[in-house]
Every structure is written in structure tokens, then in C-alpha cells.
């Protein structure tokens, strides 16, 4: 295209000495300018570190549990996940009053998350210029933050918000997962109402493995099953996990061959009240049709006690063990149902293939007609839930259901349905 420009006719042919002087002047400008650059000037997050991950829209309930978002935005969905999914896993309430950074633009979305009383961990989606993070406090007012640290490799920035003018700084209590601990994370996409599970199968001293089944947008926060806000996705194709305070838990998306395995079950922690009678083990809350689990004969209500030769007693361990199975290679699963142990062979599929919605059929009796509200509340069951079966036997009417619950001394394992989600609870009439 050069000829489209003007044809040079007379050249300013500088003498050799002038050229050297001009060149030296330019070098001087560049050196001085570089030296004088303000320290907080941002560099672009490096793209070399970006590993490809599966580009899939995930709308699924498998296998962590139902990460079904009820709200329109990921922000609300995250609150939902923390309150209803992660808190029950912990067995203790955790704060859902965390600070989320306002999405930088409607098109990119993005959040930061609070990692301490006044600190927010966020990504730097920057091409230059000055970072001026804004946080929205719970009272709706905005706070302008100060970047106190940037990790150049991941582009993660730690932003401090000073309390000002009668406003409190955003707060969140967190714990760091210990090395070797198995954690489960959930990720929300800024543009989607869905929350998808992310597996952190093992954390190490300075590194964790993350296998992702979703493509994360910059700024997407990840939560871990221990209740901590673990990380923020730093670029559109890579998820970086960073421990609070930027002590760097590297978690990179595994590319190729790193697809989490699935057998098509929805798992649930066995209600504590039933552990003495049935436990230990992890409850199969639902089996999706056409999945390896269904083909192997696993049914809802079975307790998983071992995966691939490892004993599992806790939900996170079971999830992680199943996800870590090799796709396509037969694996043994130890189950207990009605007091009998049995071992089955299943061939796990890639999580995205095994991804099918469990059927949502099955009508029962309104829980509110079977038990007193207080009894239901104690078990965390909505009166609107449908009682489908008690101790594995289908329920026909409310009277019969009530009689069967009263007959047993102690809690019964009851199968329920709420919306399109089926699950178990330990129900016991008030005595």
C-alpha cells in the first residue's frame, strides 16, 4: 500500500553526525521516560500464560449439586450459592455480605471480591492508564479504592478501601484452604444467570489445580467449598486462583485431557442426624437418565462409600474423587443401600457429556401437610416441598406419610422435590 502514500521527492538527508545525535536524544527520552514512569502504572496481563479451556455454555446441576441460579445476575446468583450451597457444606453460616466491584462495562462484566475487612481482590483488565476501582457498599454508595498491590503475572490487584464519611468498608470473613485440602469452587459468569461448579482437586503449598468446565470472563470470582472466596479469573481464557493476600495459589485451567469426569449423579451430604443409622457415606440425591450411573444401576438414595478404591465419607471428597476419575476408563464405585455394601463398575464420561438434566417428574404430598412447620424448618425443608418417598417407599397420601414418620423413632430419610430439584432430608416429627 506504500504507493498510495505520497512519493518522497526530496529527502532530509541528515549528516551522519546529526543522525547519531538525534538517535542518542531519542534513546535519552526513552530511558528518562521509562525511569520516570509512576510506579503504579499498569502493565497488561500477560497473554502468554493464557491456556485454552473448554468454550462451553454450562447450564448444569452435576456433580457438585444444583448450582441453579434463581436470580438474573451472577452477583445475586453468587449470594445464592454462598448462602444455600456453600454454607450448608460448611455446616456453619458465612457472610454473604461481600463486596462486589461494579462491572467495568456491560459488555465485559466483572467482579472483585472482598478478601478482608477493607480489601478487595480484583483483576486488572487494563491496557494502560490508571486503575480506579469502584466498590459498591451494601448501602448502595460507592467507594473509590486504592491499588495496594498488583501481581503482574496474573494481573490480580489487591485494592484497599478506606472507610470514609460515615460509611463502613466492605467486609467478608474468609479462611484460606490448607495445603492438601480438597476444595470445590463455584464460578458465576457475569453474562449468565448460571453458576457452574469448578473443581479444585488439590491445593498445594503454592499451587492448586483447577479444572474448568466453563469459560470464565475476566473478573469472575471463584468460591471454594471451605467458604473462602478463592480467586478471580484474570483473563477470559484462564482462571487464576489466588489466595487472599496474594500468596498466590496458582490454579490454571488444565487444557486437553483435563476434563472433569462425571457419572451423572447429583450428590448430597448425608443429613447429620442420619449418620449414626446409615452413615458414613455420601448420598446420591438424583441420577440423571442415560448416564453411566443409571446404566450401572445406581439409584437415588444409595450411599457412595468408595470411589476408585478410595474411601469417601465427605461430600467434597466424593465430588473431587469422581471428577478426578479418568474419562472412559472403568472405575469401581462402592455403594451402600439398605445396609448392604456392593461394588459396581462405571465408565465415567466427560462432565459435559454426562451433563443431562435429571427428570423432574414425581408428584408427592406437600410437606406442609405432612409435618409441622417447625419440624420442617429444623431440617431446612420448605413447607412447599413435595414429599416423594420415605425410607425408599413412595408416598401416596399425607395421612400415610405422617403415620410412617411417627412410627420411626428418630429421623427418617425422606425424598423431596422443590421446583425441579430432588433431594433428601432427615425429617422427624416434633415429639
Amino acid at each position, binding site marked *: *500500500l*506504500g*504507493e*498510495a*502514500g*505520497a*512519493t*518522497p*521527492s*526530496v*529527502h*532530509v*538527508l*541528515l549528516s551522519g553526525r546529526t*543522525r547519531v545525535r*538525534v*538517535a542518542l*536524544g*531519542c*534513546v535519552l*527520552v*526513552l530511558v528518562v*521516560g*521509562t525511569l*520516570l*514512569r*509512576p510506579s*503504579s*502504572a*499498569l*502493565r*497488561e496481563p500477560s*497473554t502468554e500464560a*493464557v491456556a*485454552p479451556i473448554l*468454550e462451553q455454555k454450562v447450564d448444569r446441576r452435576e456433580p457438585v449439586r444444583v448450582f441453579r441460579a434463581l436470580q438474573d445476575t451472577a452477583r445475586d446468583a453468587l449470594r445464592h450459592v454462598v448462602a444455600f450451597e456453600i454454607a450448608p457444606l460448611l455446616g456453619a453460616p458465612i457472610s454473604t455480605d461481600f463486596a462486589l466491584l*461494579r*462491572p*467495568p*462495562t*456491560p*459488555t*465485559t462484566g466483572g467482579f472483585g471480591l472482598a478478601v478482608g475487612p477493607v480489601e478487595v481482590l480484583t483483576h486488572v*483488565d*487494563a*491496557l*494502560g*492508564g*490508571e*486503575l*480506579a*476501582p*469502584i466498590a459498591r457498599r451494601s448501602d448502595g454508595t*460507592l467507594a*473509590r*479504592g*486504592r491499588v495496594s498491590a498488583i501481581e503482574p503475572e496474573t494481573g490480580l490487584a489487591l485494592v484497599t478501601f478506606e472507610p470514609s464519611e460515615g460509611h463502613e468498608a466492605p467486609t467478608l470473613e474468609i479462611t484460606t484452604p490448607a495445603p492438601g485440602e480438597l476444595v470445590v469452587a463455584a464460578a458465576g459468569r457475569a453474562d449468565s444467570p448460571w453458576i457452574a461448579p469448578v473443581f479444585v482437586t488439590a491445593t498445594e503449598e503454592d499451587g492448586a489445580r483447577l479444572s474448568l468446565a466453563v*469459560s470464565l470472563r475476566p473478573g469472575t470470582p471463584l468460591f471454594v467449598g471451605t467458604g473462602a472466596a478463592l480467586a478471580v479469573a484474570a483473563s*477470559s*481464557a484462564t482462571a487464576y486462583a489466588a489466595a487472599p493476600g496474594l500468596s498466590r495459589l496458582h490454579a490454571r485451567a488444565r487444557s486437553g485431557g483435563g476434563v472433569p469426569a462425571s457419572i451423572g449423579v447429583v450428590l448430597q451430604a448425608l443429613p447429620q442426624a442420619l449418620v449414626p443409622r446409615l452413615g458414613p457415606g455420601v448420598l446420591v440425591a438424583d441420577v440423571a437418565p442415560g448416564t453411566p450411573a443409571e446404566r450401572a444401576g445406581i439409584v437415588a438414595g444409595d450411599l457412595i462409600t468408595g470411589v476408585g478404591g478410595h474411601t469417601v465419607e465427605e461430600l467434597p471428597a466424593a465430588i473431587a474423587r469422581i471428577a478426578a476419575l479418568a474419562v472412559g476408563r472403568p472405575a469401581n464405585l462402592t455403594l451402600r443401600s439398605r445396609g448392604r455394601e456392593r461394588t459396581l463398575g462405571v465408565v465415567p464420561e466427560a462432565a459435559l457429556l454426562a451433563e443431562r438434566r435429571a427428570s423432574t417428574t414425581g408428584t408427592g404430598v406437600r410437606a406442609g401437610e405432612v409435618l409441622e412447620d417447625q419440624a420442617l424448618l429444623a431440617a431446612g425443608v420448605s413447607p412447599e416441598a413435595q414429599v416423594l418417598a420415605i425410607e425408599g417407599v413412595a408416598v401416596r397420601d399425607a395421612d400415610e406419610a405422617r403415620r410412617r414418620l411417627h412410627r420411626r423413632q428418630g429421623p427418617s430419610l425422606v425424598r423431596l422435590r422443590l421446583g425441579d430439584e430432588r433431594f433428601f432430608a432427615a425429617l422427624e416429627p416434633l415429639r
Partner: protein
Amino acid sequence: LNEILSVGLILLAALVAGHLAQLARAPEVTGYLLVGVAIGPSALDLISHHNLTTLGFLSEVALGLILFSIGSIFEASHFRRLGPGVVRITLWEASLTFALVFLGLATLGLPIPVALLLGVIAMETAPATTLMVLHEYDATGPLTDRLLALVALNNLFVLVAFGVVSAGLTLVAGSEGSWLGVSYRALHGLVWSIAGSVALGVLLGLVTDLWAARARESGEAMILSMGVVLVTVGAARALGLSPLVASLTLGATVANTSRHGETLLGGLGRADPPLYAAFFVLAGAELQLGSLASLGLAGLVYVLMRGLGKVAGARRGMRGQEIPQAVRSHLGLCLISSSSLAVGLTIQVRTAFPEHAPAITPIVLAGVLIFEMAGPILTRWVLLRTGEARTVPKPLKELGDSAPEF
């Protein structure tokens, strides 16, 4: 799709689209952009967001090469002849566009910083599309002469204005850190992005000339030009400078100081058509059709005021200059196109003023979509109208010619 497959697809799609565009009497660029929209994430999603991210470097390289060749406009004798007039036109068209867009949006009740930033972004004119259309029609004449210089100056002016406005806004809003620190950072950014970029371009231009005498073959000249442009763009990014200004300065330095400027600038001619085709298809893929839906009243005002400002400003700037009437009445229309720099500035707004970005981004994206489509078509029309288009592709005739005649 993997990257190689998507690049292949992009090139072949561009080929077909270029021909279809000629059939429809539209510039090739329009065809490239439209096919980009079609295969991009907005429509068919053959080229995903992920592909766009990884192929982003292609666009940067292409833009660097384009600006390198535009830089030759600043060749001294040529510029001495046109310079003062062109500078005046640039000042008028850019300032009037800024003023109209700012006033229009401020009257609508948009916050003053948002209106200011949108005003600055509205001033930008796309260098790449303009050059492509001029090249396609082999244009020469008083309008063509001025147009490239106008676009180059316009981009420099926009960068400086954006630096000034964002420094000003940072100073006004600056709450964190000491006032001195904030103003230092704001001013350093402004000075550095211009002075540093110019220094880098001049330095690399002089270094290029050291080797230019040895690069006799056009192949070698091409390798040299390509290599030096890549180094310039890459170094500018590494140093936090403006690749745009640096490549422009590089082109200007080579054109002015080297006996071999022509060889170097011409050497690129053969290598870059595929790169440019890819550049425009990717630019099309990045256009967001959805943004039109959210255009709104503010967007409408933005589009109208920008169009008005460009046309009226160019006309006012030409007053009192010896310029043929045909050029006088049409030049403004050739300044309508808008593209990568506007998007780039929006990304900077997102970083520097995240609180204003949600208001600005949709308007700019919708504006770019509209102007990027309208710009080349208007430029083509003007070139035909002023008689500066020397070769008008006749695709139908070409097809007939390709039949064996011997």
C-alpha cells in the same frame, strides 16, 4: 475453531466478500467488514471471542503497517506544500465534532465527564479503512492528497486531546493520593505517550536506514520493513507507549531521512493484502450488532452530531484555501469512518474511569458499527464523484475476461 483454521477461513471469506462487494458497487472493505460481522460472535460465531483475543495481534500488526505507510505523508517537501492547510482542516473538523457532540450530549443531561470523553472519542477518523478505499480505487488528486494527511493528523490530535481530557478529569476527580502525585501521573502519561512514542519511531527509523542500503532486493526490503514495524509496535507496547504514534513516526522518519524510503515503503505492498484482509474481517467480527439495539437517544445524538461536526468542520476549515469546489463539498464525508482507535480509547476509559465506562461503551460501539459501515461507502462515492478514482473495479467484466480467449 483453532487459530490456523480461523485465519484460513477469514482469508477465504474475505476473498469472496470482496468480490461480492464489488458486484454490489461497494468498496471491498465493506465486504470484509460485513463478512466479519457474519462469521463473528455477533452472528454465526465461527470466529469466537476466544479466537478474536488470540488473533488480536494480527490486527495490531496490520494497523502498524498501515500507519507506517501513512507516515510517509509527512515527507517534508510534500507536507510543506499541504501541511498548513491540512492542519487547519484537522483543527476545525476535530474541534467542531468535539464541541457538537459534547454540547449535544450535555444538553441531553449526560454527566459532563461522559460527554467530554465521548466528544473526544467522536473526533477520531479511521486511518485503515480510508487508506484501503483510496488504494482500491487507485485514487489520486487534491482530495486524496489531503485525506491521508488529514487522517494521520486527526489521529495524533485525538490522542493528545484524549490525554489532556483524561488528565483533566483525573485531576478534578482525583481523591486518592496526594494532589502532586495524581497530577504527576496524569501529566507523565500524556507527555510520555506522545514524546516517548515519537522518540521510539525516530530512533527505529534511523536504525532502519542503516541497513536500508543493503536491502536492495524488494524481498529484503519487505523483510526489513516488516521486521522494523513489528519491533516498533512491540516495543511501544512493552514501554507503555502508543503503537499508533510510534508507527506513524517510523514511517515519517524513513520517508524523510532515508534514500531508500520508497523501496522500504513500497516493499510492503506485496506482502500485506492478506494481512489487511484479515485485519478488516477481524474488525468486522468485533463489531457488535447487539449494540445497535441499545443505541438510545444519546447514541442517536452522538451519531448525528459527529456526522455534522465532521462535514461542517471540514468545510469551515477549507474556507479561504485554494481547493477545488468538488473537494470542498465532499471532503467531510470521507472523514466519517471510525474504528479501532475509538475502540482503543474506550478500553482506556474502562480502565481509567470505570464509573463512566457503562455509559460510554455502548454508544461508542454502536457509533463505530454505523460509521465503519457508512465511511467506506461514502468515501467511494466521493472518489467517483470527484473523479479521483482512477480504476474502478468492474467485477462482471473481469469474470467475462477470465474465460479462455485463445
